[in-house]
């Protein structure tokens, strides 16, 4: 029960569901539980150590993002999208920019597309490193794996800072391109980081992938079946961990993704271990994409010359732009009535949708497994609650 010591446990005597002499124990995990990576609460009913019911409660971090965006100009919402999934601000920018570009029919210059792929894949690298670091931290491997992961992540964040000015709130993309071009020496530095990245992955795998404790804690835990994953609309590494071959980079081929050769790693069992491995393998594929993109990046402008920064008014209509963010399908749905603000602005957050199957994965598991399963979902509450 060590995992619940930080939570407020209160005893509610209730007759056991199976008619035995056991009584159900209701535990409220969160909202300040360290494993929830934010403010998220789970009402768990336990029969001994076994989970019989789990009710996720969210909304603690609601900031009215969609409504605020309807009162802002199109450009004004761009920095707010950084704060959705605050680990991956660049991919959030990308999805929003893609939706607006669809709405207004804007073409993105070649170099900007490459910049988007490079920064987007770097974002995937740093998201996945921190996620597996946190997953192991939640499992009780306090410190070491997370620190190794953060050491690597910091190198990517340094690249972001020298390109966009900020480590996390990059606010990098604009409609019709990117805000800043690579400064001198940036590409070389980025190449160095990317070349060294597989070495870190090897190290991480030696450190943990074969670890017996990790396997015992994750294999066969939190199984998500293929059918349920598809029915519930799960996307991203979680869906692929269950063995469904669906990656929007391959399906939609948005941007210039059809130019790069990369594989889509798939899991087999849909358990926590598979989700962990899918992320590790995905990083290796991202490294491949990055190597190809950095080799081919052409010179040229980074902004569409016809698109104005101020006074931007797309014609009336609607558009849905979606990308494969590190967490899954991130989409923005916009309706324009021809005014400077969107009439409707809706985010399709992967974190929220992926979180909906939490109960199904946790039923019948031990209470200490909840934390591990939660960690393997990879969600950010800034995006869940918006």
């Amino acid at each position, binding site marked *: 029960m060590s995992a619940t010591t930080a939570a407020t446990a209160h005893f509610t005597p209730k007759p056991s569901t199976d008619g035995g002499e056991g009584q159900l124990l209701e535990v409220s995990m969160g909202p300040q539980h360290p494993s929830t990576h934010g403010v998220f609460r789970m009402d768990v009913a336990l029969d001994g150590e076994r989970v019989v019911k789990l009710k996720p409660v969210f909304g603690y971090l609601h900031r009215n993002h969609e409504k605020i965006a309807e009162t802002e*100009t199109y450009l004004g919402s761009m920095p707010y999208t950084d704060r959705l999934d605050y680990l991956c601000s660049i991919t959030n920018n990308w999805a929003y920019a893609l939706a607006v570009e669809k709405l207004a029919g804007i073409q993105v210059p070649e170099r900007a597309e490459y910049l988007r792929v490079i920064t987007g894949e770097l974002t995937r690298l740093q998201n996945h490193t921190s996620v597996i670091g946190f997953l192991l931290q939640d499992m009780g491997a306090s410190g*070491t794996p997370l620190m190794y992961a953060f050491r690597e992540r910091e190198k990517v964040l340094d690249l972001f800072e020298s390109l966009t*000015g*900020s480590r996390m709130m990059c*606010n990098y993309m604009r409609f019709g391109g990117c805000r800043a071009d690579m400064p001198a020496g940036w590409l070389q530095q980025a190449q160095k980081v990317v070349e060294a990245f597989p070495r870190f992955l090897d190290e991480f795998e030696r*450190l943990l992938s074969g*670890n*017996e404790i990790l396997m015992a804690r994750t294999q066969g835990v939190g199984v998500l079946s293929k059918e349920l994953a598809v029915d519930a609309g799960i996307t991203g590494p979680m869906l692929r961990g269950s063995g469904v071959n669906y990656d929007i980079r391959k399906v939609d081929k948005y941007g210039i993704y059809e130019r790069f050769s990369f594989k889509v790693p798939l899991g087999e069992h849909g358990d926590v271990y598979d989700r962990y491995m899918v992320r590790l393998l995905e990083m290796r594929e991202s490294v491949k994409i990055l190597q190809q993109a950095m080799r081919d990046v052409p010179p040229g402008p980074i902004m569409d010359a016809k698109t104005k920064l*101020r006074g931007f008014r797309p014609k009336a209509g609607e558009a849905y732009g979606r990308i494969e963010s590190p967490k899954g399908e991130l989409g923005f749905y916009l309706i324009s009535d021809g005014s400077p603000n969107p009439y409707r602005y809706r985010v399709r957050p992967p974190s929220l949708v992926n979180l909906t199957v939490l109960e199904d994965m946790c039923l019948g598991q031990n209470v200490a497994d909840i934390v591990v399963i939660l960690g393997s979902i990879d969600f950010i509450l800034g995006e869940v609650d918006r």
Partner: protein
Amino acid sequence: MLGEGIVKGLAETARNFLGSYVSKDRLTTVQYPEERLPQIEAARNFPFLVYDGEDWQQGMRCVSCLICEKECPPKCISIEKSKDKKLDASGKPQFYPTVFNIDVSVCMSCQICVEVCPFDAIKMDVDFELSTKDRFGDLLWNKERLSKSNEYYREIHPTEAAAVDAQLAEERAKLEAKSKLAAEAKAAAAATVPAQPAVGATAEK
């Protein structure tokens, strides 16, 4: 063999531990505030107002056009435009802000004000050691607190500042050439007018 994976993992931590004594790659932390990492040039924190020359009031580039106030997403800038005009650093009469406040407790360092300003008057600072005990007064920065010299700007963002300086110089040169051309044309017109008074008179009728 059971336990093999754990032993392998421990060997990896041992390698990292020993490596941290010899390799900078394995020990990346620094002891702030005694030790500091070099400032990244593109870094941004909060905006400041640029002024040319010595006197911040006279040299202030901001002409109080209110664009940044309108475009700032969280609306943390408040400006009051002057009624009169004042000579700026290049000697041109311009409006100026009588009040220019930025509430940095609301500012989200997005840089949009910088991007939309047509006069290169507002730029991003890199100073991050701003902790204060006064939660309200000290976080509402007035125009005096916001004003920093162009030299300071050149110091913190050398590449960007050089580009801005070059662009401003070019614009000024163009403007001067234009006014010179206009003056010449005026002089030429004045010279030609008395020579053909009849033509001008008939054309007018």
